[in-house]
Each structure stands twice: as C-alpha cells, then as structure tokens.
C-alpha cells in the first residue's frame, strides 16, 4: 500500500503555519472563497451529505444529515464548535487547534455558510490555555483580513466567530449541556427532543459539531466527494486522527484512514512504535474511555464505526487509545474509571447519579482488598440499569460509563476473582463492621424488579 499522505495534519511542521499569510500561501481559504462566492448553502450541505462525513465527536452521526435537519424557514442559526475535549485518552482536537488553527477557522466559515449561521461559538475547555491564545490570535488575524465579520468575500454573508471558554465539566461536551453552558447556566443536558437543530442555543436552530468534523470540511470542498470516499472503509469514509497514550514508545496523535487496527496503532512504526522497555499490553481502551476495553487478544479490532461493535464496544468514540500495561492492578484501573464517571455525572438523573456513585463505591471496596465475587455481578447489573439507551437518563454519559466498566469486569473477570480469592482473610468482615456497614447491606439483585435495560 502506498504511504498515506496526511490530510488534516498536512500542515504540521510548516514553519509559522499559525500565521494567516503562511496558511494562505499553502492554498488556505481557497475552499472557503469557492463555497461562499460560487455555491449556495444548500449545495454545500448536499456535498457534505454525499461525502459520507460522519461526526468525529463520538456519536458518529452523519454531518450533512445533521445540517439538513435545520428548518428551511429559519431566520437565525447558530453554529457551536465543540472543543470541550474531555474524554480521557483523547487529545486530537487539541493537536488540530495547536498545529493548524486556520484550518479550523476555514472549516467554520464553510460550515457557517452551509448552515446559514449568523454566529459561531467555539466552546473550548478552560484547561486549554495555550490553545486558547493560539486560536484567539489566529482569529484576530482572520478578522483583520476581513475573513470574519460582515460581507465576506464580497458576498452578503455575515458571520461572527467567538471563543467561549468553559470551566471544567465533562458533561459540557454533550451537545445540549454545551448549549446550556453557553447560555450561562449549569451544564445540564436537555431532554431531547426538541433536538438542537430545531431548538438549540437561545432557542434558535443550532448545529453542534466537533472540531475534527469541521476540519474535514475544507478538504472535501477542495478535493471532492469521490476522493474523500476513497479513503477509509465503506461505512466510515475519510481520514481520522488517532491518539495513543500510556506506556508506549511514542505516545501521540497520528492520522490514518478510518479502519486502522488497534494493534497497528500501538505497535506500528508509523504510530506508537510498541511498548516501553519491560512493559507488555494487558488491555487497551481504544476510543476514549467511554467505549470499553479490548484484551490483548482482541487488539486486531479495526477502529472504524462498525468493527468495534463486534468486540462488545460502544462505538468508535474519539479513537483515543489508552494502553493498560500488564503490571497495572486491574482493580485500580476499575476504581479510576468509576471515579471519573461518578465525579462527572451532572446529577440530574437518579439512575446516573446514584448508579455511577455506587459503582465507584463498589470498585473502591474491591480495590481496598475487600471485594466479594458477588460484587462483580452487582457491577454488571448496575451498568445495565442506568443508560440513555434504556430510556433511563437524559444524556449518554451513563452509557459511556457502562461500557468500560462492564467490559472490564467481564473480560478480566478471572483476574478480579483471583485478587478476591487471595485477599487477606477477614477483610470483608472487618470492613462491614468498622468502615461502612451500610455499603455491605446492599442486596445482591437476584430477582430484579427492574428489567435489564441494555
């Protein structure tokens, strides 16, 4: 196979690429000019639709289709760019904003025009300090050159673009949580429908897209739909940024066509280059924490929108792989994961708030060396009764929690049982008596009144 030419990362390493004139000298903003001066918005939506571009933010929803849901007679539309990136193991949006800020801005121009948006808000997590300054500088430069503001490229189209900084909450990455946060409220996801396309930011039709999705847009315009479709697999067109972290030789962000295998991502010469000296793979969470875990034997799983499901995972997620080394205590990994979700649950829905918290408590207990084999069943049980897929919660956070927690318990069950068997004798009884009696009074759900939802 011919060596893959990067698309989204093609400008990485070009000196001064953050400057407008350097970006322009490499053909930048030509696509935006073409769309704004020669196309109609509906034409642009059609092109993106036929390209098969699917959202890169986690859900994989077809991008053009999302745009076409906007009511045709709308007066005001908003575009929200999701740069909240807080899924553990994921940092590709950060790389895109750091390395090539104008690519994102050009994408926003085209996406804004296609959706007939009046303003675009880039919702950026607050921990991105350096990235904020980089992007703000690029934005200022673009404004000064007349690329944003009024009468763009001599047409009647106006678009304002602002960076809105978040304040540290994972749920604000959820699209309606993001909208609420932008409105100055707690980032509490909204009940859907109405979907944002009908009633979103300030109750206007709104489109929320991930940074990487937006970055793909100028390239589709430039090189055409056929070219885009020729990359990747049938259902998963286009280039994708993969990230890998954990004890690998070269952790980082790499571009490849959709469908790269997890093993290649970790061991490939062009990617992670294998494990650090003395480390072996125990497992890998291939798509940001929320998708679930693969064991060492399952590493040949292809990372695209379809293949991952065959391995019991939630989906592609954000394609950010976290490698778990052989010497990591699986009980601590579980405790870490459950802590994340119990900390980040926004607390609106009982199933999610209580479910994630109890999972954390059980996992903590197991990690403290006072687990019971029955606890493992209990964990699986709880994860089946808290998600949006079962209609029990408002947003997808508990589904995202259920998959890694359940798959890790199921796929590493032997290891958990082994630890529990070798536990200090009397430890469970000690905890019951002295530490938290209530925590051990939990009934083991044998005959359930609640039907398993997932």
């Amino acid at each position, binding site marked *: 196979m011919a060596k893959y030419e990067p698309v989204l990362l093609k400008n990485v390493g070009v000196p001064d690429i953050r400057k407008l004139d350097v970006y322009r000298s490499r053909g930048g903003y030509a696509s935006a000019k073409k769309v704004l001066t020669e196309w109609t918005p509906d034409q642009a939506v059609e092109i993106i639709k036929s390209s098969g571009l699917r959202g890169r933010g986690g859900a994989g929803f077809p991008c053009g289709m999302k745009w076409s849901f906007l009511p045709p007679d709308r007066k*005001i539309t908003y575009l929200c760019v999701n740069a909240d*990136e*807080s899924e*553990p*193991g994921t*940092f590709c*949006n*950060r790389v895109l904003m750091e390395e090539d800020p104008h690519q994102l801005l050009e994408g926003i121009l085209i996406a804004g025009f296609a959706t007939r948006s*009046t303003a675009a808000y880039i919702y950026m*997590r*607050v*921990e*991105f*300090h*350096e990235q*904020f300054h980089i992007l703000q500088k690029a934005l*200022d430069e673009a404004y000064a050159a007349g690329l944003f*503001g009024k009468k763009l490229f001599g047409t009647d189209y106006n678009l*304002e673009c*602002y960076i*809105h*900084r*978040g*304040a*540290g*909450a*994972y749920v604000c990455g959820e699209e309606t949580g993001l909208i609420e946060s*932008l*409105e*100055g*409220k*707690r*980032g509490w996801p909204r009940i859907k429908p109405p979907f944002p396309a009908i009633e979103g930011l*300030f*109750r*206007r039709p709104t489109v929320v897209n991930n940074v990487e999705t937006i970055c793909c847009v100028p390239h589709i315009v430039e090189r055409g739909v056929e070219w885009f479709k020729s990359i990747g697999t049938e259902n998963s067109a286009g280039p994708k940024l993969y*990230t*890998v*972290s*954990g*004890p690998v030789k070269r*952790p980082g962000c790499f571009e490849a066509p959709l469908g790269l295998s997890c093993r290649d991502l970790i061991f490939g010469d062009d990617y992670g280059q294998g494990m650090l000296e003395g480390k072996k793979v125990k497992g890998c*969470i291939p798509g940001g*924490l929320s998708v679930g875990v693969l064991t060492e034997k399952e590493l040949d799983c292809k990372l695209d929108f379809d293949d991952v499901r065959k391995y019991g995972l939630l989906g592609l997620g954000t394609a*950010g792989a*976290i*490698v*778990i080394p052989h010497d*990591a205590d699986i009980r*601590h*990994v579980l405790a*870490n*994961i459950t*802590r*994340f979700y119990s*900390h*980040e*649950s*926004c*607390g609106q829905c009982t199933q999610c708030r209580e479910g994630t918290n109890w999972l954390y408590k059980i996992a903590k207990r197991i990690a403290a060396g006072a687990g019971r084999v029955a606890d493992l069943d209990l964990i699986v049980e709880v994860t089946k009764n808290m998600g949006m897929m079962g209609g029990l919660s408002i947003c997808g956070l508990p589904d995202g929690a259920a998959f890694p927690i359940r798959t890790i318990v199921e796929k590493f069950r032997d290891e958990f049982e082994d630890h529990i068997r070798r536990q200090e004798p009397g430890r469970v009884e000690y905890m019951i008596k002295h530490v938290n009696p209530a925590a051990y009074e939990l009934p083991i759900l044998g005959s359930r009144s609640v039907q398993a939802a997932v």
Partner: protein
Amino acid sequence: MAWQTIDRLTPVVDEKAPPVLSEAVREKIRSFFPRYETRRAALLPALHVVQDALGHVSKAAMKEIAEVLEIPPSAVMDTLSFYTHFWDHPKGKKVIVLCRSLSCQVMGADRVLQEVKDQLKVEEHGTTADGQYSLLTEECLAACDHAPCMLINEKMHKRVKADDVAKIIKDVKNADVTMPRSHLFDKPAAAAVELPKTSDVKEMKDA
C-alpha cells in the same frame, strides 16, 4: 461532584462594604454582552474575568456580577457551584492542577501526587499555610501524550517525574514564571446579530 454543595461556611455579604468589582472589571464584563442574545450568557466569561482579577469569586462579587448582568444573584451562585474551575473562597497564588485520569495514572500520576503533597505539606484540594499554593486534582487534561501532566496556573508541565517535582515547584517559586490565570482579556466583540426582540423569540417558539 458537581451536584454537591460544598461550602456553607462563608459569611453572608456585608451590605455596607464598598463594592469589590472595579469599574474596569465591570466594563470588561459588559464588553461581552454583544456576543450573545441574552445577558446571562455572558456569565461564564464574567466569572472568569472576576476570578482573574480577584483570585476567587466571593459572595459579594457574585451579587455584583448579578447586578451587572441583571439576573438574580442565585442564578450566579447556581452556575458557579456547578463548575470545578470556579471557586468562591481564596486559593493559593499558584494553583497546581494534577491530572488523575487513566493515562496519567498508568504513567505514575499517583507517585507525583504523593510527592507534591510531601513537598508542599498540603492535602488534595488544600492550600498551603503561606497562601502560595493550592493543590487540585482533575480529570483528563487532554494532554495524555505528555502523561503524567500537571498544570501550574496556565503552564502545562509535561511528563512529570516524581523526582522532578521538587525542581519544578522550586522553579516556579524562584524564577518568576507565574502566569496570569486564564485571562479572557481579548478584544471586545462586534455585535453578533441584531438582537432580536423578546417577542421574536416567542414567535419562533410558537411556530
């Protein structure tokens, strides 16, 4: 936990005290108004601005922000208490944020955390007695390729080893690399849209 109320001990606002927000800060907050359809949407930027200026957002400051935005003070409190990045009581001059999520943990974040605690004699979410440092732990900072990582104010420290902690902290103490906290002091914005009248919004709702 975003849904838990943490602090009930801060005294109520002294009505007679002079205002805590300077005119410059108020002006800065107002400069965000044209960006959004509602005033309330400027709340997150306003809280950032105030926290940058004062180091934290006190109850008195919350009340004054509410005045500027023309929203109830409880709305400010409601929003502020949700976000981990806003604090309603003073923190140290340098806020150390350590990542504790999975990638960083498998790369040794626990040891780094212990080392920071030992060096500064401070607990998680605590502040040193001299008011210089606060230590926070947070979930993934989206810098997992640099795991374990640690933010000190605005500066990201990458691939931190437990052995280097003393040096990093000392460096920050002596050499002056104190950075301003997240500042939003960019240019004021042009109006986003001709602000629609409230009746307009209702119309759309009905349609």
